């Protein structure tokens, strides 16, 4: 009886227009040159990063005393080779991930509008919100499949080359990390879909997306540094007190946390480096008495929870604005 119900539900879903729309998005992405080029770029850089990590992991492993702290699979994602010529996997992903999100969404609506296909779809009995929802879900599904396959391939490559299976905790940490990547890319996707609704030209919307991405990945930290330095009292005649230093540091992290890139880097650090016990400044009093051991998975998750919520809600806000504009927009070109 239960099974019958489930089967029926699946059937209604498969015949629903949302699924038809989403499926078309997925097909379009998979067949598009754009997605395949991006896929090749990201795939190659990941292979390069993993290759360099694997070539130096023996040295890293030799330096670790306690077998419990080894976390070889997490190391694989974070270390670079000894010469430092290639960045690590996490650097690549946090750099290229937003680009993937932007490039899959920047022409979602305006392309259809300019080709008049939007009008044709909208004159069918389809709720208007299904159209942007399907754009988002379709792209996100493609991204999720891609990220998961990369992650699992990395684990596979690790098993083959190191001969040690990952511990359960490592595995869960990596999977959680992959989910985090997807929600991070989801934010950029939502942002670029918003631009694709707002701007009639695909080029403008792509540029707007890239501008925001560049702003947060390069300029934002410079600006925050400027603000923090400017808020310091004159250092010529007096050295700053420890208290003031801490205040500055707090100001710095608080401002930086407005940037999704920074939030994601915090998530990455805590998830993949269990020995990091906290984010932000710690006073001597807090350190006294603490045991210098790696954090458990749940403790790590507790620490990054606000960051995760931050990124997801930023994505939802983008999507909500996009939704709002789209519902009330005139479709006529």
């Amino acid at each position: 009886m239960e099974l019958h119900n489930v089967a029926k539900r699946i059937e209604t879903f498969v015949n629903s227009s949302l699924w038809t729309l989403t499926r078309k998005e997925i097909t379009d992405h998979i067949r598009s040159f754009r997605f395949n080029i991006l896929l090749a770029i990201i795939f190659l850089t990941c292979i390069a990063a993993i290759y360099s990590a694997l070539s130096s992991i023996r040295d890293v492993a030799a330096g670790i005393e306690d077998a419990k702290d080894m976390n070889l699979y997490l190391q694989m994602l974070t270390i670079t080779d000894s010469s430092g010529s290639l960045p690590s996997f996490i650097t690549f992903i946090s750099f290229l991930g937003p680009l993937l999100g932007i490039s899959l969404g920047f022409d979602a609506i305006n392309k259809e509008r300019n080709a008049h296909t939007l009008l044709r779809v909208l004159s069918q009995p389809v709720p208007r919100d299904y159209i942007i929802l399907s754009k988002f879900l379709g792209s996100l599904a493609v991204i999720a499949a891609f990220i998961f396959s990369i992650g699992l391939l990395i684990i596979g490559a690790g098993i083959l080359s190191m001969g040690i299976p990952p511990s359960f905790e490592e595995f869960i940490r990596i999977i959680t990390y992959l989910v985090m990547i997807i929600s991070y890319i989801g934010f950029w996707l939502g942002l670029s879909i918003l631009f694709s609704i707002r701007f009639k030209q695909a080029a403008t919307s792509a540029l707007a997306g890239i501008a925001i991405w560049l702003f947060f990945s390069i300029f934002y930290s410079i600006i925050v540094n400027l603000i923090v330095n400017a808020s310091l009292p004159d250092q010529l005649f007096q050295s700053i007190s420890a208290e003031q230093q801490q205040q500055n540091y707090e100001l710095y992290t608080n401002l930086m946390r407005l940037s999704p890139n920074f939030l994601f880097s915090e998530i990455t650090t805590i998830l993949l480096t269990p020995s990091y016990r906290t984010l932000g400044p710690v006073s001597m009093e807090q350190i006294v008495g603490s045991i210098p051991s790696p954090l458990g998975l749940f403790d790590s998750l507790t620490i990054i929870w606000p960051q995760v919520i931050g990124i997801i809600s930023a994505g939802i806000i983008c999507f909500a604005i996009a939704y709002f504009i789209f519902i009330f927009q005139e479709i006529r070109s």
Partner: protein
Amino acid sequence: MKENIIELKGVSKDYKETRAVNKLDLTISKGEIFGLLGPNGAGKSTTIYMILGLTKPTEGKITVCGLEPMKNQILVKKKVGFLPDDVGFYENMSGLENLVYVGKLNGLSTSNAKERALHLIKQVGLEEAMHKKAGKYSRGMRQRLGLADTLMKEPEVVIMDEPTLGIDPKGINEFLDMIQTLSKEHGITILLSSHQLHQVQKICDRVGIFVRGNLLQEGDIPTLQRALQEENHVKYKVVVDGSLAEFPRKMEEYSNMEMMERDSDSFILTLTKEDDGSLADFITSSGYKLLALEQLTYGLDDIYERYFQGGESIGTA
């Protein structure tokens, strides 16, 4: 007997400062082919978008199949097919795939959608091109595929915005015949807009002349001609033999005379009322030989010129 399928009551639409449609009243009954005629920018498309529920009217009430389009968008779109002037097909999908996709959006299963699409493609004569990418279709083929596309949902009403735009004359005739056949076969109500009176008058049961947001006249073509005739006075073309220079002065004595123009060797007389035979008598009794006397009727060109080009002078004349 007649059931009203589209009803507009006092519908207006303002865009910022301009009024695109002004207090429009229009009824279209079931199974009818109605032509909305007017020059570019008359507000035809705006009216169509409002009927479809894609644009919100500023004021007034629209009813389509007994429903208000803005409030029941999904239900109305289930019953109303729309063919825009340039149908947006997904260019990387074949003609057949495009139709099947729309069929599925209308809730058909893949196999049903395919069956229906194949049937319709045959009806519009695109069997040979159905596996070709829609991006490779010619303008005329796109419009025909568009017609099949609107029929995928088995509509009660099909609304077409400038369907004949950019098709060659032969293609237009074929296309219009197709529309007429389909309308009669399936009992579909059709509303089409055009600025080509010549083309669409053949298939329209009724037309409405639409200029600057106002519906100036509606009815079948003979009604329009009659309306035009009543508005203007009756005109006669006269060819006489005799002293032509004297003729106008002579004619001023005729009681029903309104105006007179000379057109090389003939005269155009405008009378205040229809001639009852006294005109010929008057001319012969004035010493002229009457060679020809012909009442001038208004053709399509006159209707076109009167309403479309001189749109702004209507009402003051």
